[in-house]
């Protein structure tokens, strides 16, 4: 576990940055890969390691940073939703309803909207929805681990290249 401490730290930092509105709209997909590169640099500095980074280590660091970022992002989102009893999903529901009525989407769309409205009502009433948590965790896990692994590969290449030039 101590081996992955840098990924824990940078994963947490990435999660905090991702909930800041201005930062997310500008840097979007670069937050988690950036965190992975930082984790690799931190690991080298802390362990005073000057060896080439292997692909296995880069991929694991990417995956672990993505995983930690997932947990923290989900936890922060759920906490903010619990306190405010609203979120982007709940606020977008009236728009979806207007869309369905205006463009006459059909009965299947109406059924889908019923399910989403139920989830939205649960969030507005209790501040929490188990289904929302599951969907959020799954979607964050898929995206953050993929982008984390990409960041790991890029970081490995950049740091190894820098070492070779030195």
């Amino acid at each position: 576990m101590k081996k992955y401490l840098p990924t824990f730290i940078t994963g947490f930092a990435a999660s905090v940055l991702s909930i800041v509105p201005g930062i997310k709209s500008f840097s979007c997909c670069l937050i988690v890969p950036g965190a992975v590169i930082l984790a690799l640099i931190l690991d080298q500095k802390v362990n005073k390691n000057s060896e080439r980074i292997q692909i296995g280590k880069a991929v694991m660091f990417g995956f672990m940073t993505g995983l930690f970022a997932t947990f923290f992002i989900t936890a922060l989102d759920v906490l903010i939703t619990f306190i405010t009893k609203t979120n982007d999903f709940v606020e977008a529901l009236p728009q979806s309803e207007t869309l369905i009525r205006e463009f006459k989407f059909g009965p299947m769309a109406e059924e889908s909207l019923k399910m989403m409205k139920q989830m939205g009502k649960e969030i507005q009433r209790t501040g929490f929805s188990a289904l929302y948590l599951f969907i959020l965790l799954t979607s964050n896990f898929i995206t953050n681990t993929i982008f984390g692994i990409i960041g790991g590969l890029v970081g490995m290449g950049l740091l190894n290249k820098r070492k070779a030039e030195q």
Partner: protein
Amino acid sequence: MQNKKIFPIKILLLSALIIWNIGIFSPCFLGKDNLLAHHLIKFIYSPVCHQNAERSFACNHLQFMVCARCTGIYFGAMIAALLNLLPVSISISKRFLFYSALPMIIDVLMLNLEVYQYNKLLAFITGNIFGASVFIFIFEIIKDYFLEIIKE
């Protein structure tokens, strides 16, 4: 000879980008009734984009999964991955990567200074340029690593 060895990597990266872009463009394939699928897929792309409806393209009255700029970035990367299958070697420096981000950065700055209003096509084009450059840069890093391993 080298091209043969790294061809599987090129195909793998292109496949991954095609799948990712299919997700982004899914409102065009899903149809109006699949609202639940639309929202579930939208959740998957939510960590990588603000998904502002006003700044996104739409199809079948449903917005794309990411904004116009992000659509441009991933679409540009996919086109670069497709052209990468050709037996032509292209490499770009870190400086060129920075220059390719300049149109995007200038566009964002102009928007924030309210010089002009958000233009989806302009955002898409600037995203395209950056996305293509990022893909080539990342591919070079992965290619160099695998070629070194093969040499050893």
